[in-house]
């Protein structure tokens, strides 16, 4: 109840505020709102997407300077200034994103400092932008004959913009593309194997966060009526990041809470510090830096999770019945048709030949087991099929199509779904959402449709499909519980459900029975048999001999990167080379 009352109560306070608060407090609220927009972008970028930027203030600056120049020097209207600001900012963000988002590790955040400084130096030295003096006399935004300048009118403009942005972002995170954004954290391999173009998604998040900063810059220019380059330096950029992390970078509310706390604390410090010492401007920066470090050391998740613990726990949402119509399915090949053909594939890692001229074929509606001692090259071959690795030689065909050099993402679109030897789930996302990620390629809705809530029908279908798959593998007891709370063996089963949600032709499983108890193994074997009965083709890498031999139609045995035997389980068991490979002894 309390949880559900929070949002309306907050909105009520925001609406009532201009009628009761002092003008000074309204001005503070305006600063909070403008900062919260930038922090909101950082929540998407850092807390949700796992990227970070110290240079958001530069985007604020690009927008503010663009609209200031347009309205003061060119005599344009603030509304066209807004368009110009958004266009220029997204152009800059796209170029910077293209340059840096492919590079891993430290290079993106560090280059954000560099471009932040570069843009700051440019602003400070361009005569047309007033150099270090900035631009003053910027006209306010007008709506008809109403001037939306500082005070309550500015408050309305700022908080309506912020409210709209929060609504759009919350919708986005709850959509198909939003799930893809949330899956970015923790490595790209899983997302790519589901057909998610992680580079495109990162670029999109980056540009969205820049656009939110641009909105803030546009508002700053027209509400303050003055822009100064010092507001766009790396220091303020740091402050925005502090706001997002202090409030809780993983939560949209964190942006608002953090912006409010930092702005109010700065205001209080500016009153307090001059009493303690002169030259207090610098002390303020030092105090903030030390506070920031303390937050990073003690409460990295920010305040929202701490506060959420004080509230009564969320009531479990009842499992909705499956009512939506079904997602369209791809046609399956006729039983017995060739699905996968690997011929003479070779993969070297330096001097080590991991796969040495291996060949195999897999037919529709067949379970093929890939077995062999440790280090035989099974997992490498597996990764070659899925596109996680690229072979040095040889040919891999899927449904008659050459997929040898295709990346994992393209292979996923053709109808191969996989599981991982080391389980790759998003532990903080719900079990249902993890499976919905698997159906990513079966949806069509884009970022804008998600943000505007035009995707509900498709979302219902994806959700229903995911629930269906959860039920099929027997994990539908608590679909909204975090995936990370499942024991490891069941996490593997959840990966199978995710693979099934993709509606694949071929499903490739890497040691799915590892860590399962006996009864669970039987259940898994039954599930795989029923999938086979539906015409699905399955490639299985497995160590558990009993499990494999009781299940597969044929097995392929590898040793030292080469295929040494192939055939139905009975022949494999009798093969002397296989016995030698597994048990040792004279060849």
């Amino acid at each position, binding site marked *: 109840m309390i949880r559900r009352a929070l949002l309306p109560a907050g909105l009520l306070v925001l609406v009532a505020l201009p009628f009761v608060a002092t003008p000074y407090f309204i001005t503070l609220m305006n600063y909070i709102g403008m900062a919260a927009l930038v922090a909101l972008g950082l929540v998407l970028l850092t807390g949700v997407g796992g990227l970070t930027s110290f240079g958001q203030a530069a985007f604020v600056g690009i927008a503010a300077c663009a609209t200031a120049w347009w309205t003061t020097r060119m005599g344009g209207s603030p509304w066209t200034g807004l368009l110009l600001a958004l266009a220029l900012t997204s152009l800059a963000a796209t170029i910077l994103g293209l340059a840096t988002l492919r590079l891993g590790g*430290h290079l993106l955040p560090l280059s954000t400092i560099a471009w932040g400084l570069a843009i700051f130096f440019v602003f400070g030295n361009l005569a047309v932008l007033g150099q270090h003096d900035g631009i003053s006399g910027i006209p306010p935004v007008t709506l008809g004959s109403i001037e939306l300048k500082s005070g309550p009118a500015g408050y309305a403009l700022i908080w309506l913009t912020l409210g709209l942005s929060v609504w759009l972002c919350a919708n986005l995170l709850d959509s198909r593309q939003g799930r893809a954004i949330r899956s970015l954290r923790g490595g790209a391999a899983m997302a790519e194997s589901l057909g998610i173009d992680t580079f495109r998604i990162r670029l999109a998040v980056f540009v969205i966060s820049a656009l939110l900063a641009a909105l803030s810059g546009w508002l700053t220019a027209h509400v303050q009526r003055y822009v100064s380059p010092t507001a766009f330096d790396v220091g303020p950029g*740091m402050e925005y990041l502090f706001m997002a992390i202090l409030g809780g970078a993983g939560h949209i509310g964190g942006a608002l809470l953090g912006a409010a706390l930092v702005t109010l604390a700065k205001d209080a410090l500016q009153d307090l510090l001059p009493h303690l010492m002169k030259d207090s401007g610098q002390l303020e920066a030092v105090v903030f830096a030390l506070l920031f470090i303390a937050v990073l050391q003690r409460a990295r998740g920010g305040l929202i999770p701490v506060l959420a613990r004080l509230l009564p726990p969320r009531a479990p949402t009842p499992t909705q019945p499956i009512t939506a119509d079904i997602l369209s399915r791809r046609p399956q090949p006729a039983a017995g048709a060739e699905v996968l053909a690997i011929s003479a594939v070779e993969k070297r890692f330096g001097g080590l030949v991991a796969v040495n001229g291996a060949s195999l074929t897999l037919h529709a509606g067949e379970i093929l087991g890939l077995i062999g001692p440790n280090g035989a090259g099974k997992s490498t071959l597996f990764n070659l099929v899925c596109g996680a690795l690229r072979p040095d030689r040889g040919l891999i065909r899927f449904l008659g199509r050459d997929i040898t050099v295709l990346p994992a993402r393209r292979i996923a679109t053709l109808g191969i779904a996989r599981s991982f030897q080391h389980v790759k789930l998003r532990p903080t996302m719900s079990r249902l959402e993890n499976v919905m990620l698997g159906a990513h390629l079966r949806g069509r809705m884009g970022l804008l449709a998600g943000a505007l809530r035009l995707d509900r029908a498709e979302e219902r279908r994806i959700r229903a499909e995911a629930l269906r798959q959860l039920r099929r593998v027997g994990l539908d007891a608590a679909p909204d519980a975090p995936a990370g709370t499942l024991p490891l063996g069941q996490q593997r089963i959840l990966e199978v459900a995710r693979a099934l949600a993709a509606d694949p032709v071929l499903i490739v499983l890497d040691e799915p029975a590892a860590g399962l108890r006996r009864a669970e193994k039987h259940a898994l074997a039954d599930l795989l048999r029923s999938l086979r009965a539906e015409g699905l083709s399955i490639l299985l890498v497995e160590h558990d001999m009993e499990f494999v031999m009781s299940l597969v139609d044929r097995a392929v045995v590898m040793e030292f990167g080469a295929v040494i035997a192939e055939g139905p389980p009975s022949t494999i068991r009798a093969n002397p080379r296989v016995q030698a490979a597994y048990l040792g002894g004279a060849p």
Partner: protein
Amino acid sequence: MTGDLALLLAQDGLANGAIYVLVALGIVQVFLVTRVIFVPFGDIVAYASLTLAALQAGKRPGTVWLVLLLAVIAFIFEIAGPARRNIPRAALTWLALPLLPVAAVWLLTGVKLPLGLDYTLTIALILPIGPLLYRVAFRPIADAPVLVLLIVAVVLHFAVSGIALMVFGPEGARPALIVGGGLDVGGLYFPGQMLLMLASSAAVTLLLALFFDRTLAGKALRATAINRVGARLVGIRPGHAGLIAFLVASALAAISGILIGPVTTLFYDSGFVIGLKAFVGAIIGGLVSAPLAALGALAIGQLESFSAFYDSTMKDAVVFAVLIPILILRSLLQRAPEDEPEEEEL
């Protein structure tokens, strides 16, 4: 542009480059060993130079306040932390040891120092800063994702340079040249200090290479950077390795500050921009090896010198903007990305 002018600019660029080489080497070495981009490195360089200048002017360097503050915080962390240490030992390591040079500087301020003692004092006073910063800022979250470590490093810069403004004031300072004179080679004049800087860079590169390749402590440091858990399993204490790495960083920063100070006036906030430019140079070099980083830093010096000739107000913007095409080039050259390690929630 005439040939003579270009030559002059190139010479000027070499002088700039010599500065960046030293700093780039420091940053790259710390990065290769700890995977921490030690952003405050440049600030410590500025501290070193300002300390030396203050000592030479007979003034008490503000650095004593930074060391004092850090030592007290580190001591509190040590005795109040989850693993309660024995207090006398903590006091010895974290209070007495770092405060030794502070006391020496305090007593010797204003005394006419014999030759070379000002350099010794400067190095002694700067040395504790790295390990103390590590203890206070990084060690409590040593297992955090690299992204968090990087944010801490950047925030730390704001704290350290803010304190620098409070203790040194906004004025810059320039210590005396270590070597005067210079070499005249075919009409080009190479100042002695610049040659000293380049020679020191080469010597530092060599020494560090020997340290990391030939000594057990150096190898332990590299092992820790590659895999903390694995290093711990074979008996390396990651905390110790971190301390050593930051001690090395401090030493490099002290040497850089002493060498750079006499050729360019450093202000309390100069370190950050110098550090970033050196880092851009290191990225040109690919961030993989010291010699390549040095070449990249020299290139940055040239770029700065030539762009200053066309528009002196824009030279900083040009140096940072050049990062973009470099990164695009590196993106294009990069092979298939390896999967990043799974990271926990921020």
